[in-house]
Each structure stands twice: as structure tokens, then as C-alpha cells.
């Protein structure tokens, strides 16, 4: 026990736990505040309760509504428990099944987007005029609200025979190529003049300069970009599920929840979506640590 107390004092656990506790407390207070008006209206309409309800009645009832404005954290946890742990993951009533539908589209999109982003960066770094020719379009592509363009992408792709996973993956790729391009242009041009002079003295050709110098030097910039990209890919896949009324996926659950006013269902889908995105970012971070260690990083 002594060592546990010591670890709590010296480590990061205590501040992290404190922040989590504060967030949960704020969430509870918010749920009470946002739900109270409807409960009070109910009390006032009821002959027995009118004028006789107490604050503890109010708190109890605001935290256990069927369709609250803001569900309490424990309601979301119960719903997650029901829809994740109590049903088989292959059932379409399982939130894990929906999460996998979304994640698979996001991962395909992430792969496509990362490849596209790297290819664009390689082209921009090696052909001077391409920077001016391509960069404005790359930036313009990201100024269009994805919610506006997603239905069109899905309709256009659907008309040429792409349905199901691929249209969603394309929207993910559309979102996540951008940070990869920006990061890789920076990374591929990051070698210092001295490092470039050195490899020139060996009369290396452009391909060798790329493989031996620019590519490995870019890794420090590639991984942070990939972390942003993978989180965007999850967002892209969810957005791709919204306009078509997709039958499966976290986006479909969000949509169904809002049709029927099932706020608890919406919030549990949101929580799981953020968990999926968070785990994806963590997976990229893990790949980063392994790669950087093999490349002599100090970590």
C-alpha cells in the first residue's frame, strides 16, 4: 500500500484521475441542469407532487430519464454494457459490430489517404512547379465542408457502382490525405544542407538521395501526420454513413438514435466512436515508437 501511495504521489496517475473526476462531475451537473426543466414541468402537472417535490427527488429523476436531453454518465455506461457486452459482437444489435463497420471503412480510407498524401508530397518535393500547381487545390479541397460534399461523393460513386464500404472509405481518404501531404512535404525537405552535401559527394542519384536521406528523415514528420489522419478517417467514415441512411455503422446508430429521440443510444455511439478514434491514434503511436526505436531514437 505504501508503494501505491508513493506511485500516486510521484506518477501521472493522480492528475489524470483528477481531470477525469472533474469532467465526470461537470457531466453530472450538466445532466441535472439540462434535464431539470422537463422534470419540473412534470412535477407541476402532477397533483400529488405539485409543490411537494424536493431537490433530491429532482436529482434522482433527472439522472434516470428515458429520453433525457443529456444522459448521465452511468446511463451511457449501462447502455454500452447492454449493447457491447451482453450481445454477440456479430449481431446487428451489438455496438461493436457497428463500430467495426465504421472502423473497417476508416482503415481502408486511412490507407488510401496516407498513400495519396505521401505520393502527392513526393511529387511536390521533386517537381518544383507542382508545388504551385497542386498546393492550392490540396488546400481548397479542405475548405469545403465535408458534410456538404459527402452526399455528393456517395451519389457519384454509387452511380458508377461503388456502394457499401468504398464510398465511406473515399470520404475518409479525402479528409486524411491532407495532413499527410503537409507533414511529408515538410519531412522530405527536412534534411540539412550538410546532410545533402554529404550524399552529393558520393555522387548519389535522386533515387538514392530519396531512399537514403529524404525518406528516413521524413519519419519524424510522417507519424504525427498519420495520427491526425487516422482520427480524421474515423470522422470521415461516420460522416459517410449519415447522408445515405446506412443500415450499419456508428453513423447509422447516431442517425437512428436521433430519429427516435434515443439520446442514450446517441451518446453511447459517440463515446464508442471517440474510443475507436482514440485507440486508432494509440495504435499509430505504438507503430511510431517501434519504428523510431529501430531508427535509433532515444525513446
Amino acid at each position, binding site marked *: 500500500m505504501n508503494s501505491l501511495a508513493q506511485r500516486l504521489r510521484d506518477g501521472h496517475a493522480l492528475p489524470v484521475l483528477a481531470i477525469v473526476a472533474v469532467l465526470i462531475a461537470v457531466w453530472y451537473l450538466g445532466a441535472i441542469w439540462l434535464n431539470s426543466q422537463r422534470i419540473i414541468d412534470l412535477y407541476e402537472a402532477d397533483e400529488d407532487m405539485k409543490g411537494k417535490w424536493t431537490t433530491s427527488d429532482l436529482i434522482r429523476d433527472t439522472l434516470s430519464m428515458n429520453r433525457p436531453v443529456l444522459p448521465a454518465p452511468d446511463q451511457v455506461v449501462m447502455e454500452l454494457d447492454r449493447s457491447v457486452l451482453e450481445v454477440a459482437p456479430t449481431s446487428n444489435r451489438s455496438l461493436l459490430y457497428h463500430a467495426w463497420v465504421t472502423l473497417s471503412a476508416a482503415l481502408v480510407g486511412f490507407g488510401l489517404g496516407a498513400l495519396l498524401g505521401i505520393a502527392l508530397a513526393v511529387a511536390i518535393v521533386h517537381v518544383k512547379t507542382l508545388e504551385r500547381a497542386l498546393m492550392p487545390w490540396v488546400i481548397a479541397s479542405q475548405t469545403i465542408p465535408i458534410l456538404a460534399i459527402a452526399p455528393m461523393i456517395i451519389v457519384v460513386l454509387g452511380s458508377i457502382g461503388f456502394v457499401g464500404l468504398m464510398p465511406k472509405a473515399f470520404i475518409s481518404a479525402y479528409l486524411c490525405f491532407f495532413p499527410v501531404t503537409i507533414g511529408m512535404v515538410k519531412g522530405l525537405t527536412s534534411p540539412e544542407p550538410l546532410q545533402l552535401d554529404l550524399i552529393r559527394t558520393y555522387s548519389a542519384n535522386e533515387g538514392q538521395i530519396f531512399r537514403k536521406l529524404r525518406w528516413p528523415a521524413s519519419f519524424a514528420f510522417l507519424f504525427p501526420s498519420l495520427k491526425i489522419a487516422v482520427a480524421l478517417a474515423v470522422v470521415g467514415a461516420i460522416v459517410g454513413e449519415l447522408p445515405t441512411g446506412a443500415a450499419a455503422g456508428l453513423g447509422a446508430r447516431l442517425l437512428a438514435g436521433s430519429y427516435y429521440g434515443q439520446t442514450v443510444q446517441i451518446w453511447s455511439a459517440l463515446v464508442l466512436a471517440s474510443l475507436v478514434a482514440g485507440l486508432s491514434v494509440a495504435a499509430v503511436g505504438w507503430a511510431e515508437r517501434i519504428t523510431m526505436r529501430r531508427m*535509433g531514437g532515444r525513446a
Partner: protein
Amino acid sequence: MAKIERLRDRSGAEVSPAARQPAVEVAGLNLVFQTADTPVTALSDINLTVNKGDFVSLIGPSGCGKTTLLRVIADLERATGGSIQVNGVSPEQARLARAYGYVFQAAALYPWRSVLRNVTLPLEIMGLSRKEQLERAARVIELVELTGFERKFPWQLSGGMQQRVSIARALSFDPDLLLMDEPFGALDEIIRDRLNEQLLQLWERTGKTVIFVTHSIPEAVFLSSRIVVMSPRPGRIVDIVESDLPRDRNFEIREDARFAEIAHRVRLGLRAGHGDVDE
């Protein structure tokens, strides 16, 4: 100018017919950098012949063009006038033929490569077999006394060790010509002395041609068979001092009267160029 001609004749007479072709031959070389406001003359009317097997130091204060001259020889900078030949061909052709090894002021190791893989970098680019890469790397790593450190990464080494890796890397493909730009400038005196001694032994053993940039008079005199004194604004040669110290020398020679004489002449040259002497 007359003095340089005389030196060239004399050294020309010394070399054997087989090695008659000089390693580096520079005549009337100019280099003017076009900057935003005014053109800057980095090198003005440089005449210099470096014979095979020579150890030539370029010495002078900051801004005298010694590094620029080395970079012109290495084809990292282009002259704007005059002529220069390296091994009888243009610097570009010499670079493409991998005629020289260049040691920079900083070690310039690639941080994601281990010591071994930094040393094999030029060999990979030159397309040697993996077996030969490893053999050659082992040989030069032993030469700079870093055996056992092959798997370390640059950040795990001291500055002196990093610079020794960079020397091993330059030696790995066995170039006849070594271009060294203040390779020990950032190191402390003790390590510097030791590396100087090792470099001298290496030169003596291998018969390589070395062109060595420095701003330290004792370093230049200790190492060189010839010392080229340069002066800034514009960068030019003010004196070329021939050293008759024996090739096979050690640190005791610093106490020698002849050593002091040569150092004195270099100092006078630096002063005559009214540049500010760093040391």
C-alpha cells in the same frame, strides 16, 4: 606569384614520373557570390597545385575562403572564373568518379543509422556487395579505433567519436584524396591532439593526398607538408610555406626550433594579409 611558380617547379621535380599528374591544379580561380545587394568576392586569383601524397593545409581567418576553396575542389561550389582540375578532370567529373572523401566541420552522421550503417552509406550508394561493405567497414572502424561501437547510434557517442566515425566513413571507399574542413575544430585540445596524431599516421601509412582546412597554426604546422596561408576580403593566397619537417613526426617536434620557425612564417603571412588571426 613568382614564389608559387618556384614551389610548383620544385615539387614537380620531386614526384616520380608515374604520379606526375597533380591531384589538384588550380589556376587563376575566382568565385564571386551574387548576394542581394553587392557581389561578394569569395576567392580571388587562386593558384595552387597539390601533388599526390601531399598534406596541404589551408589556413586563414574566418571569411578568407578556405572552406569555399575546398568546396570548389569538391564540386559543392562552382567557380566563376579560372580553371581547376582534380585528378586531371573537372571537379564535377571527379565527384562523379568518387575521387575524394570529404570530412565536414560537423560529423554529419545520419541520426537514424548506426555507426556501422553510417560507415557503409557511401558503399551502399556505390553498389558494393553486402559482404564487401561489411569487410571494408570493419577495417576502417578499426582504423579509427571504434571497434565495438558498430551498433551504437550517433547520439550515444561523444563529439570526438562522432568525428572519428565521419573520418571512417570518408575512408571506407578508399579515395586517394581526402578533403577535410576543420574536422577537429569543435573538439577539445586533448582529443584534437590525439586525432591529429592518428591522422598523421594514417597519411604516412596510406600515402593519401590530404587537403586540410584549419585556423590553428600549431595544427597546420604539425600536420602539413605544405601550408597555404590565406587572407580575407577578397579571399586570396598570401603565402605558401613549404615544411621540411620529416614526414614521420611526433609531438616532440613541437619543441623543435624548426617547428617554431615555420609557425612564425605562417604567423607573419597571416599578419601580412592583415586579417585578424584567430589563434
